[in-house]
């Protein structure tokens, strides 16, 4: 479980996050949603420690991450897997080497065990016979799946996904969403997904936190999001014509 407590962050004079608190439970797909530029990715980076918040704390199963010393931070980070928006695969390494990378650096496993684990993870995300392909030779959806395989290869306890289905066609996007949800349940991990895609919210949003201009406006589940009264959230959900029509009906 991850708890965030009064997280605030400013860049120069611009307040990007204002006193955000929340709890991301284990075994549940937690979503941070909001329009572009509302601070979703900044919040995610504060949680994983890529950005130091001005105020507030992040707790990983009760361990204070924000104020932890270097060794404790490293220990917690080695339990984290992250899928970046563009995949962030290492250009100079092929698919197999990319997925094997955390095992090479962080474990003492034998070469054959590592290869077995890589093949297992690639099969789990539906990728087989692509081991030797370079990142430049695979599609956007495949890159995301390789990114997920790399994030889970080291038995991560926490999975973070930054816009996992941006730039993907609707079918592939839903497939990636479902894969994230399945992996969360299968390995009983804590998953936090940043997205602005309402399809993702309706598909996998067991806990949803809505941000607007750096402020947490609403939290709940996808089952009651459409009944939420907050105007900013209503505007966000029903921004497209299809959703407006569905609501009217």
């Amino acid at each position: 479980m991850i708890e965030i407590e009064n997280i605030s962050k400013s860049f120069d004079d611009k307040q990007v996050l204002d006193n955000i608190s929340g709890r991301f439970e284990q075994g549940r797909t937690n979503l941070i949603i909001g329009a572009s530029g509302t601070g979703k990715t900044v919040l995610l980076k504060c949680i994983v420690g890529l950005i130091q918040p001005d105020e507030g704390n992040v707790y990983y199963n009760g361990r204070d991450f924000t104020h932890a010393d270097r060794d404790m931070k490293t220990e917690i980070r080695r339990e984290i897997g992250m899928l970046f928006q563009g995949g962030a695969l290492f250009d100079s390494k092929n698919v197999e080497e990319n997925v094997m990378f955390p095992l090479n650096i962080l474990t003492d496993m034998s070469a054959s065990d590592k290869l077995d684990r890589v093949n297992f993870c690639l099969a789990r995300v539906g990728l087989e016979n692509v081991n030797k392909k370079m990142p430049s030779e695979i599609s956007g959806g495949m890159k995301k799946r390789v990114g997920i395989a790399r994030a889970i290869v080291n038995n991560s306890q926490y999975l973070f996904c930054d816009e996992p289905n941006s730039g993907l066609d609707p079918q592939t996007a839903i497939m990636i969403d479902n894969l994230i949800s399945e992996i969360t349940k299968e390995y009983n991990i804590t998953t936090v997904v940043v997205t602005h895609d309402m399809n993702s919210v309706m598909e996998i949003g067991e806990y949803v936190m809505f941000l607007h201009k750096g402020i947490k406006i609403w939290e709940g589940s996808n089952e009651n999001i459409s009944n939420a009264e907050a105007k900013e959230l209503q505007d966000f959900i029903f921004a497209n014509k299809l959703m407006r029509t569905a609501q009217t009906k």
Partner: protein
Amino acid sequence: MKSIGKYFIFLGSLFVNRESFKTYVRLIFDESILLGVNSIFIVAIVSTFMGAVTAVQSAYNLVSPLIEDYIIGTLVRDMTVLELAPTVIAIVFAGKVGSSISSGLGTMRITEQIDALEVMGINSASYLVLPKIISSVLMYPLLVILAMFLSIYGGYIAGTLTNILTEQEYIYGIRLDFNPFTIKFALIKSVVFGFLISSISAYKGFFTKGGALEVGIASTSAVTNSCIAILLADYLLAELLL
């Protein structure tokens, strides 16, 4: 001043939270091929022509009958060993390797590959930069030794083929009053230059912000700053050691 302070903090960060020794050995080997072995061709071309041109231009300037022809050999030796091989090749090295280090790290930064390393609990600066600096410090002196040989050989080829001087005169000239300290001085310079080129370029690339345009700017800035640092260090070392 802020930038210089940040540069030294960056250098300090290379030595904390390091990975296993085995990891670095493999990375240093890979980087040595990329930075050193892959630079042999350009270094060989530049240094051979540098020696040849030095010989021909020295002959053109030495018109007095009081000056023996073998002095051309001595001039080529002293100019290449003391200055041209370590310093001019450093400028070439900064152009080739410095821009490559900077643009490579800059691209990794803007495509979140460096963030990916950090999230895994890996000290990205140490993992990515330290092997480059060590490889550069190890390989650049070897390139300078090669450049010294090829420059002197280039002078020999140009001098003898154009009948400026005979083989014997050239060989007598390059052996005349040889001071071994000049080699030591050139190698000290090459270690310093190798460190400056790789660390400055890595610093510029590592802290790139923005997109493709900024990667290009960082790369240009890396080469420019490396060249200035090389020339400054060249002067300081000459004042201190000669």
